[in-house]
């Protein structure tokens, strides 16, 4: 039963957390178990988002672990740990009990989502009620959310900038050597596989973006899938190689994303309507079938670009750090040169 696995994984993390890579794997396992939980309980969009956010988070943390110690040093003394466990246990029990109490009662008043379900197709033009809430009914929440992502990207960039200018930090970085002596740092099969997957993954991203209004998908998931595809290139072929081939400034992607979303919101002012009002129209260009053009798609495009840019900016900042470690830089796509005679 998945529930048992989840609990086992979570508790194992508390015991085993001192080996950081293991702890990370256990954490991501817990996250991956939650995704089918969402899917089972009628939340396909959530499951998609949980999986993709999980993947990006784990990748970023793995890359970041490069710069941190591989194990947590001394454990806290036993009384301290017991006290922590007691506090945590009580808090957890409290939250769990609250959740149970809430789940076993009915809403006291009719929930406002009845309106959202009823108006999703007629008022917002999409059949995916979750997506219409995100980009239309409660689009302002999403606007704030992409601003958060944009700010995160800026903060990450600024922090890494500051580290790169600190002599003490650079010194500590330079003496860092590769943790494990791998024979293959960039195995050829891995590199080739990710390279082939790249256009397909991008296509999946575009597909998810376009269908988001009516089926599970949408700007976030699309942006994350796109970003994962590009992230894989970094993993496969290393920082230097990938950096050379990404010659545009990620700040621009983030900035344009927020700008497009803002303009989509402001556009409705022209019609005398409040900020972020969206409209839609049905077109039937011959020989295609009727489909819908919604201004919410412009907003979703802004979301897509911001998510993509933020993840890539974070990654680019990490790679700038990585290029300064004691590792020998790798300028080839993979470890061996297939054109040489072996």
């Amino acid at each position: 039963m998945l529930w048992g696995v989840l609990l086992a994984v979570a508790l194992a993390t508390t015991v085993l957390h001192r080996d950081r890579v293991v702890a990370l794997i256990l954490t991501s396992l817990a996250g991956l178990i939650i995704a089918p939980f969402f899917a089972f309980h009628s939340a396909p969009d959530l499951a998609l988002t949980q999986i993709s956010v999980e993947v990006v988070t784990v990748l970023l943390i793995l890359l970041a672990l490069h710069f941190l110690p591989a194990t947590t040093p001394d454990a806290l003394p036993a009384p301290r740990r017991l006290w922590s466990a007691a506090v945590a246990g009580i808090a957890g029990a409290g939250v769990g009990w609250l959740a149970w109490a809430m789940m076993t009662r009915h809403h006291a008043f009719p929930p406002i989502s009845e309106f959202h379900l009823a108006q999703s197709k007629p008022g917002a033009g999409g059949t995916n009620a979750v997506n219409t809430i995100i980009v239309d009914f409660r689009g302002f929440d999403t606007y704030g959310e992409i601003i958060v992502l944009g700010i995160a990207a800026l903060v990450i960039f600024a922090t890494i900038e500051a580290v790169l200018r600190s002599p003490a930090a650079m010194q500590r970085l330079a003496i860092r050597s590769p943790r494990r002596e791998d024979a293959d740092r960039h195995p050829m099969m891995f590199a080739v596989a990710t390279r082939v997957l790249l256009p397909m993954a991008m296509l999946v991203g575009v597909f998810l973006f376009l269908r988001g209004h009516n089926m599970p998908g949408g700007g976030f998931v699309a942006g994350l899938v796109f970003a994962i595809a590009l992230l894989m290139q970094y993993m496969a072929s290393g920082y230097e190689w990938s950096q050379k081939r990404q010659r545009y400034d990620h700040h621009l992607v983030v900035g344009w994303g927020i700008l497009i979303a803002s303009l989509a919101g402001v556009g409705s002012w022209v019609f005398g309507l409040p900020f972020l009002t969206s409209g839609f129209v049905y077109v039937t260009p011959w020989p295609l079938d009727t489909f819908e053009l919604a201004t919410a798609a412009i907003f979703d495009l802004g979301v897509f670009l911001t998510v993509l840019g933020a993840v890539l900016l974070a990654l680019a900042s990490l790679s700038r750090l990585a290029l300064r470690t004691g590792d020998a830089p790798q300028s080839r796509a993979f470890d061996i040169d297939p054109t040489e005679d072996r």
Partner: protein
Amino acid sequence: MNHWITAPIILPAFVAVLMIIVLRGNLALQRALAIAAGLALNGIAIALLWSATTHGTEAYFLGDWPAPFGISLVLDRLSALMVALLAALSFATLLNAIGSGWDAKGAHFHPLLQFLVMGVAGAFLTGDAFNLFVFFEVLLIASYGLMVHGSGRERTRAGFQYVAFNLVGSSLFIVALGLIYGVTGTLNLADLAAKLPSLPPGDSALIRTAAVMLILVFAIKAALVPLQFWLPGTYANAPGVVAALFAIMTKVGAYSTLRFGTLVFPPDLPATGDLLASLLLPAALVSLAVGAIGTLGATTLPRLAAFAGIASMGLAFTAIAAFTPQTTAAALYYILHSTLATAILFLVADLVTRRRAHGRLDSAAPIAQSGLLAALFLAAATAMAGLPPLSGFIGKLLILDAFRDQAPLVWTVILGASFLMILGFARAGSTLFWKPEGAAPPAIAEPFAVGAAFSLLAGLAALTLLAGPVTAWLADTATALHAPAEYINANRLGQDG
């Protein structure tokens, strides 16, 4: 359709985006744009204030969806007042940052500042609980960036702790929101206010829990005991100008408490009753005491300012916790005063610290321009400690007056705390400015930086001189807060479009 209500949120967003896309790397142009935007924001804030006073409470329905199904922005006297406060404070700290060169010490200072203003404005203007959470996150993450601006070993570590602690607070917020929606089925503040009085008694336990959780979240933001311990470490390690800006962030906690405590969970609600007041008053008094003692025992100037800030929030919350129109009006006056006063104190601390290379309160060496700085410090200390003739005295008097009937405990704590703070400031001032002997080092000319502090001081003076009209206006505001029918009606619940 009056779109100007969205301006405090949308304008900074556009400005920040412009800076990222077009002006990256051009600090001079960013500064110019930031100043222009700051001036524009102040103008808009004044216009909104006038509109709220003359036209009453107005709601703006984002996406053209009726409340409670969409998100609404609500402009009433309180939110207009807080936006105006934000505009004034952010402009003064902007000038200080430019004048002292702080904005050049790291990347992206100006976009982050714009986003912080956007987040705080959104928190003040929104009429939806989850939207409040989103804007809390916006302002928090912008503050994380500003906090570690300029880097430095201790700053980054303090920054990590600040972020981690606030993330736990955000998690608490999400649980509370889940409870609220799970029980009532709505997230709109006016809708909650309309529906909660008829809540079935079986659900009131869950709502009480949610209310307490929300108060905890706001108490974290406002640095109320026992959740105040993040503030001294953070503010003492933040860049000085950023700490001054943070003065408005604790007020977000105060504003949210006031909004929820008068609108959603008023004292006459059967489900929660006196719960909020009974929790907040002891916490506020203890915060006042802790802050005052900390002021006396502070070893560095930034920590002095931080503890004084905690004390002033404690006093403000003492007045808020009583939830009557008279105490609320006093609280609002004091909030206006303490925001400006705390900011000035942090700016002075910053000016002093940079002229000595450390903030320790000792008499090691004379400070450059000590006459000027001493005058500023005296003014800031007078304001914070609540001595006449500045507005702190008036504010304190108003609060004491409002608590006349509960004389013993509240009066004792307030007066005792004031005494300790006066001692603390006097000690710091004489150590820094009177005792050092010897030739002062050459003056560092920072007209904008010092000018910014003086402009805030001018604001305090205005608050004092205009105390009559201001308190009358605030009394009307407080009365409106405690009679939330106008707010609820402005949202036009139960109508479509």
